[in-house]
């Protein structure tokens, strides 16, 4: 499978696209050093960006399609492909499966290892969509209520 190798961190991507300033990125990185956490979530928490901004930046930069999960229903058969713990840890939700192709909504489609894990787990090749973190968290809460 051909996958675009990209090591560019999300913070730099947002900086390049002029969504945040260098000072804001520095502040977010300081916060990350102090308290830990993901840079995207920190920037959102600090109010420097909106979740949609991040999703759109990823779409524009890498060509991942954007999927607003709010009004999307997923079959239980599909969610059963991936255990709750994997969905929660990697922040992704399976949304559709056609043939041997599994479609995922992810907040960070650059997490190649997560995609590999899902491929290993499902035996399918994976297509990724970008969604906002909060949408995915809501979806996980909805579909994986009783599960681990």
């Amino acid at each position, binding site marked *: 499978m051909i996958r675009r190798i990209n090591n560019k961190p999300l913070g730099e991507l947002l900086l390049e696209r002029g969504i945040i300033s260098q000072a804001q990125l520095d502040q977010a990185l300081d916060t990350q050093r102090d308290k*830990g*956490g*993901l840079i995207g979530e920190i920037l959102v928490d600090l109010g420097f960006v909106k979740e949609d901004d991040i999703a759109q930046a990823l779409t524009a930069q890498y060509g991942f399609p954007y999927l607003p999960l709010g009004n999307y229903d997923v079959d239980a058969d599909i969610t059963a492909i991936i*255990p709750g*713990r*994997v969905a*929660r*840890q*990697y*922040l992704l939700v399976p949304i559709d499966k056609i043939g041997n192709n599994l479609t995922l909504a992810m907040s*960070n489609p650059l*997490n190649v*290892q*997560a995609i*590999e*894990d899902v491929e*290993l*787990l499902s035996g399918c090749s994976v297509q990724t969509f970008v969604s906002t973190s909060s949408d995915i968290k809501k979806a996980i809460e909805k579909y994986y209520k009783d599960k681990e």
Partner: protein
Amino acid sequence: MDKKVNPLSLNSRSIKQKLMVAFQLMSILPFLVCIYLLSIYIFPKFGFKFDILLYLGISAFLAIVGLMVIKEVFDRLTSVTTEAKCIAAGDISRQLQVQHGDEVGELGNILNQLTQRIRSNMDELKDYSAKTAEINIAIQKKIMVLSNLMQISGFISEGSKFDQILKIAVEKLRSLANSEISFLLIKDELKNSFLMKVADGIQADYLMTIEIFAQEAIYEQLFNLHKLMILDAQNVLPDSLSLDLQAKLRVKNCLAMPIFLDASIKAVLGIANLQDNFSYNQEDIELLDIFSKQIAVAIENGILANRVEKLEIKDALTGLYNRCFIENRLQEEIKRAIAYQRPCAFIIFDIDDFKDYCGKFGLICAESALKEIAALILGCITDIDRAGRTDDDEFSLILPEKNKRQAQEIAEMICKKIQASFGMDQDGGKCLTFSAGVSENPLDGVQVEQLILKAKELLRKAKAGGKNRVMVF
């Protein structure tokens, strides 16, 4: 000195002979002289006279009676002498028959008194020697106790295994106390109970199953107390405690002493038996006291050793991390992986047929192989990965930021390198191979136990599948 004995001298004769000579000189000879004179000078003049013959007869009779009296005295004297000789030869049980109040009788009495005194002295001596023997036995026993204690101290200072020390101490206590049973109950702070740690003697198997819980009456009222507990013919416990204890331990008599550390009870040491009308003595209590102190030292030492072990993070032989560290570290890495939406892989390697290898080539060879393997593993991993030796022939790897596929690659690379280094072409068939199981967070779980369990399960699959392989699913 060679003194020539004159046959005519009276000095060498016995008193009897001497007195016989004296008697003859005093009576028979003058009598014979008289008869001679009478027959020469008087009888020829007056002719034979009957009355003279009568006088002579009376004189002769008197002389014989005198002789008899002297003989009787001397016979007794002789018998006293014979008896005295026997006594002198060692027969002090003899008693002289004294019938007369004369000097010979007195002599007999004196001899009797003397033998009596000797006899009582000898009895006293016998008493003393019996006492000395008893003291010797007591000393011997004390020395035995001391030497046994020294031996236990030796084990403690040598750092022998904790359980082994306790077992030896309890066995020795039983043999020294000459008791049918000895036991050691250890307090389990978490479960709040006394658990039988060591039991020795009859029905030891049954005793080993005993656990005394906090809700039982004997727990608070007998064992969890700061004092000695005695149950025997003279000491009966209050209420139904005697029966409870006898039923619980299946014994009749019991002597138990608490063992303290930092003013709290850690264990109870005891001896027990099944005899009727039995009473414990001070000696038993002292023995138990000494042993309880010794066991307190062993327990304290065990706790300290345990603490040191917990602080250690490296395996002494290979320099890799130990099991405890690996498990703690894996927990941290999993937390980090969850927080940063990253994977974290965990691999367990096991050397195939390592026991056979040890049996064939010996411990030294096996240890050097383990060291080599450790170095080889370290050469295949990055700075953020952690390698540990988690069992005799088991190695574990924590690979943060790596998913199952990446971990599989690393596991396979290590297995190949092991095969290359310890392959079939080794001298004397010293070949070694690795089997491995790879688990990952989040695929196989979010807890350390889940990852370890999964990796072990996969490792078993790898072994069952023919060894020298890596299993990921």
